[in-house]
């Protein structure tokens, strides 16, 4: 598939717009899901995913064909989404670290009252609950979690997409997973 995508990109670079259609339809759900995981509502996720594809098209000449297209595309999508989150809620929490180097310290970082009460949980779709709990994580954890669990990307690729060291990706995944473990325990 990657080879086929590369062929299509060559056509797009030559100016053949219709070749882009297959690219969009191939990646649409992945990009949409990543945005959705990060922003938490479907309307905005669609808006961001659309914008990501349009930007990728406009800037297609800056895409290095030796690299993986999805890495580049996901990078555009996550950057746009992070920007949107910042504009929406420019408070400290977005960039906040979940402090501590391991899961045990997470307990002190995440107040117990943020977890949903059990009765409320039962009335909600499990999907909604999971998303709500993801939304309780700082944005930079969300992006790592989204990439890791939407497309099951390897840590190295996530590191390239988000332009952060692999070690940082690892830490964020561990902490994010630890936080979600605690929050989803009762689901």
């Amino acid at each position, binding site marked *: 598939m990657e080879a086929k995508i590369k062929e299509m990109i060559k056509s797009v670079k030559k100016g053949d717009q219709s070749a882009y259609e297959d690219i969009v339809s191939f990646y649409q759900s992945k990009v949409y899901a990543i945005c959705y995981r990060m922003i938490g509502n479907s309307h905005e996720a669609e808006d961001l995913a659309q914008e990501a594809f349009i930007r990728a098209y406009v800037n297609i000449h800056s895409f290095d064909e030796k690299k993986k297209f999805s890495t580049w595309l996901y990078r555009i999508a996550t950057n746009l989404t992070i920007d949107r989150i910042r504009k929406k809620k420019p408070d400290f929490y977005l960039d906040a670290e979940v402090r501590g180097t391991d899961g045990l310290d997470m307990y002190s970082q995440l107040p117990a009252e943020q977890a949903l009460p059990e009765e409320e949980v039962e009335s909600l779709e499990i999907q909604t609950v999971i998303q709500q709990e993801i939304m309780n994580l700082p944005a930079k954890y969300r992006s790592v979690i989204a990439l890791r669990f939407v497309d099951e990307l390897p840590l190295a690729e996530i590191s390239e997409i988000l332009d952060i060291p692999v070690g940082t990706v690892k830490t964020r*995944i561990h902490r994010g997973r630890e936080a979600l473990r605690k929050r989803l325990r009762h689901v």
Partner: protein
Amino acid sequence: MSCDKHIVNLMHNYLDGDLTKQEEQQLRSHLQTCQACQKHFHELKRTLSLLKGNSDIQAPTNFTASVMSNLPKERKRVSYSRWFKAHPALTAAAIFFVLMFGGIFSAWDQDNQLSYPKGKNLVIKDDTVIVPEGVVVDGDLVVKNGDLKIDGSVNGDVVIINGDHLMASAGNISGEIEQVNQVFDWIWYHIKDITKSVFAFTNK
């Protein structure tokens, strides 16, 4: 939950597929003896399956169409060339037409000399080519810039370009006779000619 955080790290590394055989053994033997860590590990795995289990989020319908309609317009040249690719026969005709126009016109202009096939016992009188009585021309006969009078016979088609077939003549033509006297006739003649050879080629 009083275990070494090292064990929790091992769990996460395990889930990332990032554990040496030795570390895996260490984790395994700890989990066999420690209930708290067992529970922790189980919860982590469950969290993962929850996250992965609903990763089938689909883009809204019409997503692709909506992206496509919001893209900046592509350059005209490309849409033409795509149209050409989609319509190869028409494209061939169009390209042929463009290329040939120049060539045909110049051929028409430059070439005012009487021309006829040599070595067929034809008689030339002024600008008239005569197939004398008793002479049989085998194959097609093409005469340019002159009239043609057939007293004998032609076993093939006759084409007269920029000239007349002198009807007084009473010879035999086994094929068709065609007169080409205008520029457009001339072009048409060429197109038919080339089309025939193209088809002959593609039919092979």
